[in-house]
């Protein structure tokens, strides 16, 4: 289709850019490090735009394919390609990279080059995850992308960062090992690491179920699904603002992406058989976590729990296996990328000024920061799924899909309308509304031009997607249809 390897560029420009930033060395060159990082991020985003422009929405096949032998003896290839499912995540990832570079512009004053480099390298690796069509390549990117995230939490994080990093490590370790086993088993059966070929590899029900659970643990931890979610609030609380933004906007999507790229197409019969389990876990995430979010006193924890609840909608949408559910879930992932990023940035804006995340320390912020309050209101409403914001689109579509699947599941899912509004707006009320609560709040300065730019960028995305989501779903239809047909057909006849 094209001669320019856009996907490779999307992966390697940020990584090379990151190395270049590292080369600027110590903090006395910090300004240069920032500038190089910003340019690399912008350039990295620019090369992803042709992916959308030249994308053929009518085709369900992988596009922008690249193939080169890597370890020929084991049939391991450097194979890249994207379809309508992965396209948006590469664009989202590249966009969020610009956001985090700007977000760390002033607040990060030590080891600036390393900080910026970590984000750029992570961004490239994550693009690799979304583009990889080879199991080993995917695994390498998947594992490698965690290292910069560990670093960001561990080096620039809060006082309890070691505890958080260990918890993160423990939870993900088990999952990664199981996924590796599953990939090796699939290679054993097919003598190939080709993810697309695995779709057609014959597997019995037992093998499918074992692989399904291996993937479930690996991806479920990342999403994170209940009950393996407790690492996320801790990680968010300790992470610097930029780390939280990437963690929420992109890292959580990796697990969900794994479900659509691996679990559903490769072990379709097991996915169908175990779907009730996933749906139950998803509903628990939506409702249980919704209540837990209500009880939080720390803003970051609250938004972290809200993320888990929103990701519950994603897994719910996937495993209902209807078009509305699946497309709604994919939209919810993109929207959550914008909205959660914006929510964490808003909390960062407050934290930078007050050095507290406790809701009780705030109150009446609108009196001193009216512009900030307006942005925060928009994002809070998006988080609560208000129409004309991106948050509405995914939630609405998934709930429609759920009612189509089973009315009672739809009813349970729709409780988020009340719960999501309750925890988000109750927090907003306590933080922003009311009389000025303390002298510190009285002394707050409204957002700077740089913060304004960041929040305005995300606000534009949230509103654009809320008012005209057509372009987002348009590219998905072909791939989603094909995936659903594939899952419906299954590999076993008769299906158990």
């Amino acid at each position: 289709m094209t001669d320019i390897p856009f996907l490779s560029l999307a992966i390697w420009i940020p990584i090379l850019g990151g190395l270049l930033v590292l080369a600027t060395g110590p903090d006395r060159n910090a300004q240069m490090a920032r500038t190089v990082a910003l340019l690399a991020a912008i350039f990295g985003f620019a090369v992803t735009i042709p992916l959308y422009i030249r994308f053929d929405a009518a085709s369900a096949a992988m596009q922008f394919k690249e193939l080169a032998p890597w370890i020929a003896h084991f049939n391991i290839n450097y194979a890249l390609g994207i379809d309508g499912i992965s396209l948006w995540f590469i664009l989202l990832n590249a966009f969020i990279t610009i956001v985090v570079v700007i977000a760390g512009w002033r607040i990060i004053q030590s080891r600036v080059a390393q900080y910026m480099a970590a984000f750029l390298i992570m961004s490239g690796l994550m693009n690799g995850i979304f583009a990889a069509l080879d199991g080993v390549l995917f695994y390498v990117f998947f594992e490698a992308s965690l290292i910069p995230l560990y670093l960001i939490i561990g080096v620039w994080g809060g006082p309890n960062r070691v505890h958080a990093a260990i918890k993160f490590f423990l939870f993900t370790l088990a999952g990664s090992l199981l996924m590796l086993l599953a990939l090796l088993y699939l290679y054993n059966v097919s003598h190939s690491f080709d993810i697309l070929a695995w779709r057609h590899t014959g597997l019995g029900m037992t093998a499918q179920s074992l692989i399904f659970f291996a993937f479930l643990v690996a991806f479920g931890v990342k999403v994170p699904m209940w009950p393996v979610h407790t690492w996320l609030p801790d990680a968010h609380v300790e992470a610097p603002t930029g780390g939280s933004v990437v963690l929420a906007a992109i890292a959580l999507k990796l697990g969900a992406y794994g479900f659509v790229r691996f679990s559903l197409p490769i072990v379709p019969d097991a996915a169908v058989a175990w779907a009730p389990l996933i749906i139950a876990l998803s509903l628990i995430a939506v409702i249980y976590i919704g209540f837990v979010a209500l009880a939080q006193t720390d803003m970051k924890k609250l938004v972290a729990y809200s993320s888990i609840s929103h990701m519950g909608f994603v897994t719910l949408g996937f495993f209902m296996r209807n078009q509305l559910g699946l497309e709604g879930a994919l939209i919810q992932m993109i929207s959550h990328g914008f909205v959660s990023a914006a929510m964490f940035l808003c909390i960062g804006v407050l934290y930078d000024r007050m050095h507290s995340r406790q809701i009780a320390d705030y109150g009446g912020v609108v009196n001193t920061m009216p512009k900030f309050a307006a942005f925060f209101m928009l994002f809070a409403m998006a988080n609560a799924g208000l129409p004309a914001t991106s948050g509405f689109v995914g939630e609405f579509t998934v709930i429609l899909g759920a009612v189509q699947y089973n009315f009672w599941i739809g009813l349970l899912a729709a409780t988020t309308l009340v719960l999501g509004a309750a925890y988000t707006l109750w927090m907003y009320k306590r933080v922003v509304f009311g009389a000025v609560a303390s002298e510190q709040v009285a002394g707050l300065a409204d957002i700077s031009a740089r913060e304004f730019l960041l929040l305005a960028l995300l606000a534009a995305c949230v509103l654009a997607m809320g008012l005209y989501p057509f372009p987002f779903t348009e590219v998905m239809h072909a791939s989603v249809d094909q995936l659903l047909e594939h899952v419906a057909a299954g590999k076993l006849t008769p299906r158990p």
Partner: protein
Amino acid sequence: MDMQTLYLLVPLAPLAGAIIAGLFGRFVGRTGAHLVAIAGVLAAFVASALIFQDVQAGNSFNGTLYTWMQAGGVDFEIGFLIDKLTVLMMLVVTFVSLMVHIYTIGYMADDPGYQRFFSYISLFTFSMLMLVMSNNFLQLFFGWEAVGLVSYLLIGFWYERPTAIHANLKAFLVNRVGDFGFLLGIGLIVAHTGSLDYQTVFDGSQALAAQDMAVTGWPLLTAICLCLFVGAMGKSAQVPLHVWLPDSMEGPTPISALIHAATMVTAGIFMVARMSPLFELSDVALSFVLVIGATTALFMGFLGIVQNDIKRVVAYSTLSQLGYMTVALGASAYSAAVFHLMTHAFFKALLFLGAGSVIIGMHHDQDIRNMGGLWKYMPVTWVTSLAGTLALVGAPGFSGFYSKDSIIEAVHASSLPGSGYALFCVLAGVFVTALYSFRMYFLVFHGKERFGQPHACDEDHGGGHHHGFAPGKKPRESSLVITLPLVLLAIPSVLMGLYTIEPLLFDGWFGKAIFVGDNHAALKEMASSFHGWWAMTLHGLTGAPFWLALSGVAAAWALYMLRPGWPAILQRRFAALDTVLENKYYFDRFNEIVFADGARLLGGELWRRGDQGLIDGIGVSGASRLVVFAARMMSFFQSGHLYQYAFTMIAGVFILLTFWIVRGW
């Protein structure tokens, strides 16, 4: 200009006003902001009038503006349906909005949030217009939630007041409970028809009526209608989702008139009337609507009798009147419901704006026990408020008489289960309405002048700022920007009923916009005994509602003019009943304890026992040895030197490759 441009102009002109006043308020200044906002709404009103003429000439429109999204084979569209029902709503919304915009110049003159206020009310007008002009469920839901958002912003407009920000959160959440049902109803429709478009859904209504729900086997259409009606209960504040509306009075008075009386709260009524092709096919749903509406009409009226805050009296009266409209829907008299919606929009906006004028005159004292004798000082407010009050109680000749009597007649003609109870409620409600309305009227405008004295009721106000008069000062009539809207609203409050009853109710003016099944022909029966508005007025003088209303007025006069000591005696005699009414049947207390506190408690317990106790406690401590091991590993990892991490990763990949290579041979 062709019609379609005109349709677009109606919502977009207020939107433009909202954007300019909101985002560029500092540049355009206060005068600039209100000029832009008023120009936008005026343009919308004029365009609506032109569209009305066009529709009156027999034209209608149903078309798509743009495809918002496609997913799952369903087209999610934004589009307009312009028919008689729509255009009537457009006129009501834009007219009342225009009056409120003008009134606001005076009412909010000293407020620092002047531009923001204009931005919000224009944004509200846009949202409400999108809601009523929609030709599909998506846009309906859009508008539905958008008016809820603006209502939230406006109730909490004075965001420093604890009561205001409590009320706006409560309003949003209670509305969300309604939206929860509404969304499920829409979900069922999409699941079974594959479409969000009204016309497609209505065309398939017979097929829907023939289906049952999966698993439970309930009749599908009944489930759909009940779900949709839960949405209407939230938005139109029907028991038990009414609790947010009285508290919404924390917002500035102009929005109480516009949003919480004339327009937004009637969205639920409009929606059910719009969905008449669905509701007509489910008697169970109609009975439910009837009973809920009747309960709201009577029992919310009782609460109006014991309120002392002028706005809260009007708020409970709004609840009660919304109940009347809902009853009409349940009796299949959709056009009577919309008729009452229209007359109510005028006279209730008038009453609220009149109350606002009184509040300004009283220097923001809202307690009617501190008023009295105001007619002397505020003649325009007095006369217009009297007109509004007479319309509200249904005095023959006034607009409310025609709409309310039609509703009572329709309930009388209905044979659905629950219609007997509903008839009792709406008849008793007439007495109650007259009692609380004239109680307020007498206490405010007549009797002894009680302002300007040190009074005992001050502790009722939680707020810090002082209200009311220094001794010796007198209230003054409000300025022209305030009295002009009062006069302009008083005219339709008096005349609108007699001019429009015949076409709206009996000549089938609504045409295909409202569908009534042959088995629910209450209005048709009434049409045969209708001989013009004059005959109806004369006949009204002999009917039960008139005498009930008259005795209500007489009771109010006796209790609050003739023997002002009696109410206190009655309160003591019926102390238990009084306590129940003062506590508003304990709905708020119940919600506070069960839902608000309960949810917080549940969340806290789940967090402590579930997340921290079970998952982290047992799950993670079970792996405690691993933690120790990992901690050691991590302390090595925590060096912060990038090369070590890179090395570790490369080592990992190397080990992996070695494993395969060894295995491969």
